[in-house]
């Protein structure tokens, strides 16, 4: 498919490189900010997290160079790009999970609501409490469904009036309550992969963060479970700011308000591949009328 075709059909839910196995058949109507103006998006988002000239290193290796972008409040921001371009690296730095990797280092400024997230007086624990994370592979704890949800509030010392209510709320919030309400005391490992992933989302929202980071949350799931998570993200956006890394461009086009396209370029001399941000804009714009030739090549499947 050429990019010309892409631009002529911006409202379909398979905007780019479509026709593949992952293309949606259009059976599920979905409210996405597109030409029908069903969702108003300001040109400038209300920033929750901001990156300014961010470089990220692993030891001496510079994995990401000069990323500047904002993640808007109650928006879904997608980060796409080829493998190894540093999407996960950037994502992990947004709640200081990258601190856990020995040798990882951030230069530049990442701020949360105006405060420097890497300031010397900042407690990473507090950062992670406000900015939760859902991982690629569902990772429920080896505990009951109930205890999986209750774990976060318990260990963070949250004041909870009724844990039962909080668990129910979180499970409802993750659209899982009806499926598990009769087996809350059973092991979380008895759930399907898609249910486990929604449990992980429920676990994350139970501690009431402001932002939820998701690193390819659907890549281990089948299309039906994926669709459920995407629907869920639409709901969650009302209360949370969501940042998602995905390899699935259709998914980015379906759920994201804004999309950032990253790529990795080999540095001259060393040959090290350093990730960089190519283009960051409204999703409709990225998929219908990208400003950069590399974005266009990537979303039309002509990358590489």
């Amino acid at each position, binding site marked *: 498919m050429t990019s010309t075709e892409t631009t002529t059909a911006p409202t379909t839910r398979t905007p780019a490189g479509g026709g593949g196995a992952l293309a949606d058949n259009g059976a599920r109507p979905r409210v996405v900010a597109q030409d029908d103006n069903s969702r108003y998006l300001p040109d400038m988002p209300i920033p929750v997290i901001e990156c300014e000239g961010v470089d990220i290193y692993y030891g001496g290796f510079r994995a990401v160079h000069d990323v500047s972008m904002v993640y808007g409040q109650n928006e879904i921001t997608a980060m796409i790009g080829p493998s190894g371009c540093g999407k996960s690296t950037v994502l992990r730095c947004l*709640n200081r*999970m990258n601190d*856990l990797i*020995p*040798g990882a280092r951030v230069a530049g400024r990442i701020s949360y609501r105006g405060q420097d997230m890497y300031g010397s007086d900042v407690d990473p*624990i*507090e950062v*992670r*409490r406000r900015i*939760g*994370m859902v*991982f690629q*592979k569902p*990772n*429920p*704890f*080896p505990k009951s469904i109930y205890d999986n949800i209750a*774990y*976060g509030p318990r*260990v*963070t010392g949250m004041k909870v009036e009724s844990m039962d209510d909080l668990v129910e709320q979180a499970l409802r919030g993750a659209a899982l309550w009806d499926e598990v309400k009769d087996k809350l005391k059973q*092991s979380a*490992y008895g759930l399907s992969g898609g249910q486990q992933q929604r449990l*992980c989302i429920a*676990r*994350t929202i139970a*501690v009431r963060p402001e932002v939820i980071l998701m690193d390819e949350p659907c890549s281990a799931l089948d299309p039906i479970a994926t669709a459920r998570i995407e629907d869920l993200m639409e709901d969650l956006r009302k209360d949370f700011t969501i940042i998602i890394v995905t390899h699935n461009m259709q998914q980015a086009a379906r759920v994201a308000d804004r999309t950032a396209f990253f790529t990795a370029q080999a540095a001259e001399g060393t040959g090290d591949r350093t990730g960089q941000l190519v283009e960051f804009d409204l999703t409709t714009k990225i998929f219908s009328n990208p400003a950069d030739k590399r974005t266009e090549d990537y979303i039309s499947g002509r990358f590489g």
Partner: protein
Amino acid sequence: MATIGQIATRPLRAERHGERSFASIAFLVALWLALAFAVLCLVTLLVTSFVDGVQRLDSNLFTQYSSQVRPETGGARAAIWGTLWVIGLTAVLAIPLGIAAAVYLEEFADPTRWYNRLVEVNLQNLAAVPAIVYGMLTAGLALTIGLRRGVVLAGGIALALLILPVIIITTREALRAVPAEIRQGSLALGATRLKTVWKQSLPSAVPGVATGTILALSRALGEAAPLLLLGAVVFVRFDPDGLMSGFTTMPVQIFNWAGQPQVEFRELAAAAIIVLLGMLLLMNAVAIVIRNRYQRRW
């Protein structure tokens, strides 16, 4: 060259190669012989001890002290109590220390620091140091701090030092088997590292830690050399009543009895071996129960 059709119509009968070839059968037989040899040795030991010792497996064995003059009614009472004291102290010293050291190394230590790498290398070596060296170390320690050597405290310290590296290594392995995703999930919720260790890593590692620890204690239970070096007394006629009490243990007592010329002592030694084996079996059974119990949780 055979066509696909020819290969497909060939019978599936075993020919010269495959599972029934001479080489694979010979290999299998060799494996069986190795296993049979090990089992045979064990069975011989068990049977001879049992035959020699069964008639002395009476209440005197448990209630009487060892006697130079009347071996036929003497018993291992002091050794049994001494063993309980020394192994109990060993467990109290070695288990918390070993687990704490393993948690530090596995969960907190930065492996790029030279001092952590130094500990790492030495740990492997310490696990291979002969037991008697730990006896000498403890004797030296006792001398320096002015402690009597042949007391429960010294014995417990020597055995704790002996099994500490083993406990650290097995605990680390159990911790390493806990998936990184579990820790990350906990940390991403805003749990501290300490909470993550306490609520996720350690509970998941309990089966491995318990098994490793109890097997290490079993090793300490059967150890005589460091205690002999420390001067565990042999004809003890009292139960230990504290850390500063003199003591003997089962292996030390067996070592001594087995060296006596009278046949009564040799019977006593055989009976004591049966008791010691019983203790070991009991500890291993406890290890298995703990492991199964915690694994069955889910």
